[in-house]
């Protein structure tokens, strides 16, 4: 079973990478981009075949490690 976990910065948190990318895009002549926020994506293969159980495992993984919930939030998606 395949899942995708998206970890993104909470809205209130400053994102230096995103800001730097905005500037760099402008200086590269890529116009029309308002704002950029950078996050992480994890493509995960699970042994599980039961989606509910898989979701529990992933939630556990996010809370324990994948996301720093002080500044980040996460979302779990199933790919197939």
């Amino acid at each position, binding site marked *: 079973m395949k899942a995708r976990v998206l970890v993104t910065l909470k809205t209130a*948190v400053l994102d*230096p990478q995103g800001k*730097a990318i905005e500037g760099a895009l402008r200086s590269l002549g890529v116009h029309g981009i308002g704002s950029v926020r950078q996050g992480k994506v994890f493509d995960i293969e699970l042994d599980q075949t039961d989606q509910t159980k898989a979701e529990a495992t992933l939630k556990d993984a996010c809370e324990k*490690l994948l996301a*720093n919930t*002080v500044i980040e939030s996460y979302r779990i998606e199933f790919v197939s």
Partner: protein
Amino acid sequence: MKAAVIVFPGSNREGDVARALKAVSGHSPAMVWHAETALPAGTDLVVLPGGFSYGDYLRCGAIAARAGIMDAVRAHAARGGLVLGICNGFQILCESGLLPGVLVRNARLRFICREALLRVERIDTPYTRKYAKGAVIRIPVAHGEGNYTADAETLRRLEGEGRVIFRYVTTAGQRDDEQVLNGAANSIAGIASEKLNVLGLMPHPENHVDPLVGPTDGRPLFESLAGVLERA
């Protein structure tokens, strides 16, 4: 003094800090492997050294913060024991919840190794009593993710409780609000826990203790600790 330096896979300044502790106190610290579950008996000071624990993968300090030994470190801190986190150690302290906030990538996204100027904001801590109040000291930084961030409430609390211990300043001794170094909120270079027993800082005092390799402005930090621990 009884000091223990925790070694994670990917730590790389453990030798530097051990050397500084030895130079100042005369005693070599115990080197404790991350997979241990207990600190050596009678440990007064725990040091989380600089480096790239677990390659700094995922988030710097994130994986190390969840290593086996960290429960023992948390318990030690809860008892009021001293915990010093330098650079990656500071990042680990934040990730493990021993200090608030988080260190994110430098505002300019580049690693920076440079001598920084720090103002010592208070000297009534176990780490700073050998400094003069308000002293401006030269300590090098070497990090890619030293940009301290926390929510507004946390920053207010840190400032209000006087828990910002080191701040980046300009040559004139003013708060470095142009954020030339890494973009840290309020120019924060180091903060302490409520009881001041846990200190995290990005700069490397351990690299400025030996006159042969540079200024010695990092020495008083270790002398402060040696003094505290001797009396303990």
